[in-house]
């Protein structure tokens, strides 16, 4: 059942569940920060409406900088603003930032310890019809390997707003990952959010496996868990909204009894959430694992829900992975 202590959306499995893109949470969170902290500034690379940064731009035009289509310049200008005491939020599609400007971010923001927040939008194959050029499926891998960074991947728009606001509370650079289309709202304003803490969204007695999911894919995991429960196969579902720092204590706690793990993410299975958890478990408590995500391939254009099925990332695939990993115990 849904964990009652987390005050989750009771309509999460209903056909009329509220739908909203996680990127809307970025826009709302950034607007909130602008109202409460005069040092917040925002930079856009010609995608202010797509990234919802336009909400900030309209309210605080003097603190908004339109860079044009130049992601390297955007990152390094932000670094200069940050070392002078500002808290810049840069936003673009994740394939371009932190993709195209990876080394610029590495040198001028991460190694330089500049307090810049990097918002990567249109992440995952959910970017759908635009095709693989615009589907960022490596962004977690290419940011997770940096020291001195935190990485948040919100599961819905409400968590997206909380994550955006939370990112300003640390002086570390933060990578924030958002997705394009409307997805089910799983949390509520009352759901607690803490950086670096995993949360068990679906709990049960005698769980046979633990599903760790990140981003909007958490909804697929919850549906899979509900169906598995009805089939007499109870599992835990854990929301991983912080990929880095990884909640190692949470991994130990949530796998202590199940001893089998499935990870679920809209990202390559290499170097993302699954990789992070596997690295930790390999050195502490090796367990059988299955990885749901893009399997060492690029996707293609298409409606995102169709792509999720074609690339074996949907509810059915998650359920199969759960059964497979349980059999490997």
């Amino acid at each position, binding site marked *: 059942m849904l964990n009652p202590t987390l005050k989750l959306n009771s309509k999460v499995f209903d056909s009329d569940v509220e739908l909203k893109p996680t990127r809307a949470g970025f826009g709302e969170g950034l607007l909130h920060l602008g109202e409460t902290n005069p040092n917040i500034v925002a930079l856009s690379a010609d995608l202010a409406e797509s990234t919802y940064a336009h909400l900030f731009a309209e309210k605080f035009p003097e603190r908004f900088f339109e860079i044009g289509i130049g992601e*390297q310049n955007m990152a390094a200008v932000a*670094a200069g*603003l940050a070392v002078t005491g500002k808290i810049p939020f840069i936003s673009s599609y994740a394939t371009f930032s932190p993709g195209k400007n990876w080394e610029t971010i590495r040198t001028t923001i991460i190694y330089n310890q500049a307090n810049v927040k990097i918002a990567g939008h249109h992440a995952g194959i959910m970017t759908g019809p635009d095709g693989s050029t615009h589907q960022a499926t490596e962004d977690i891998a290419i940011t997770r390997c940096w020291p001195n960074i935190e990485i948040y991947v919100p599961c819905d728009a409400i968590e997206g707003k909380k994550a955006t606001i939370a990112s300003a509370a640390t002086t570390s650079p933060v990578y924030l990952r958002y997705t394009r289309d409307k997805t089910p709202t799983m949390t509520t304003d009352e759901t607690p959010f803490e950086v670096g803490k995993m949360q068990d969204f679906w709990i049960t007695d005698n769980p046979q496996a633990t599903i760790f999911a990140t981003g909007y894919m958490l909804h697929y995991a919850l549906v899979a868990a509900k169906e598995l429960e009805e089939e007499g196969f109870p599992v835990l579902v854990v929301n991983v909204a912080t990929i880095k720092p990884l909640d190692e204590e949470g991994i130990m706690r949530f796998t202590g009894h199940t001893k089998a793990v499935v990870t679920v993410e809209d990202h390559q299975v290499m170097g993302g959430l699954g990789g992070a958890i596997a690295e930790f478990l390999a050195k502490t408590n090796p367990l059988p694992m299955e990885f749901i995500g893009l399997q060492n391939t690029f996707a293609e254009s298409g409606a995102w829900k169709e792509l999720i099925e074609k690339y074996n990332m949907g509810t059915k695939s998650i359920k199969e992975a759960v059964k497979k990993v349980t059999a490997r115990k």
Partner: protein
Amino acid sequence: MIDELFDDKLKDLELKADQARQLLIETLLEAGSGHSAGPLDMADVFIAFYFHILNHDPKNPDWPDRDRLVLSNGHICPIRYVTMAMAGYFPLEELKTLRKINSRLQGHPHRTALPGLETTSGPLGEGLSQAIGIALAAKLDKKSYYTYVITGDGELNEGNIWEAAMFAGKLKLNNLIAIVDRNNIQIDGFTEDVMPLEPLRAKFEAFNWHVLEVDAHNIRSIIDKIREAHSIYEKPTLIIAHSTPGMGVDFMEKDFHWHGKPPNKEEAKKALDELRTLQGKIMSEHK
């Protein structure tokens, strides 16, 4: 405001530039790796900045109202380290630690390692953008400090430079002054063979910059051009500083092979002998 430059101060600055070149050769020899040509040719510019142009306090490197000097072509950092040490940011003795383990003097400058470096640099083409960010913050905070950025000429090959040039032109950042070390060399050869930059002046003018040119080895002219740049209110200013790579050491001058290597012991001795007799010669050459 930059102080007036009297003849006795000028002579002192020229002697300091000579001393900086000697310290540089000794530092590079001790380090055993690093770049020679660029640091030598920027010695006069760095001395002019640290001893006359910059409004700064070596004992209080984080002073919020200080002028910012950003080094974009991080590989010439040895000359920055030398002039910073001479100015009192850290002991001269520490120059011997360049590029060695546990040193604050990283092979390419790292902001958080040493107070007084404004940015981390090395990968080329990123300094102009960072300087724009710093200059923009001054505008937001209504502060009157200047942001200066020194770039190489070879690094103008980088696309990031032109993204930044467009943006600074758009913002009309009159508190930003860029100095290009126009020494005409890069690792693979002469700039006009590797990737022609000319007409460089016209390119930046087309990007809405005010462009000045200066002899990078004439300290009085350098200071005068910075003063002139301060009077430009409607645009950012780019100063093309024409330099001789390896300036001051005859066998290094104008030879691109000295871009990326340090002198060995015999070469260092030869260079030092030459530099010790130089004593103000550089300016007189331009009279």
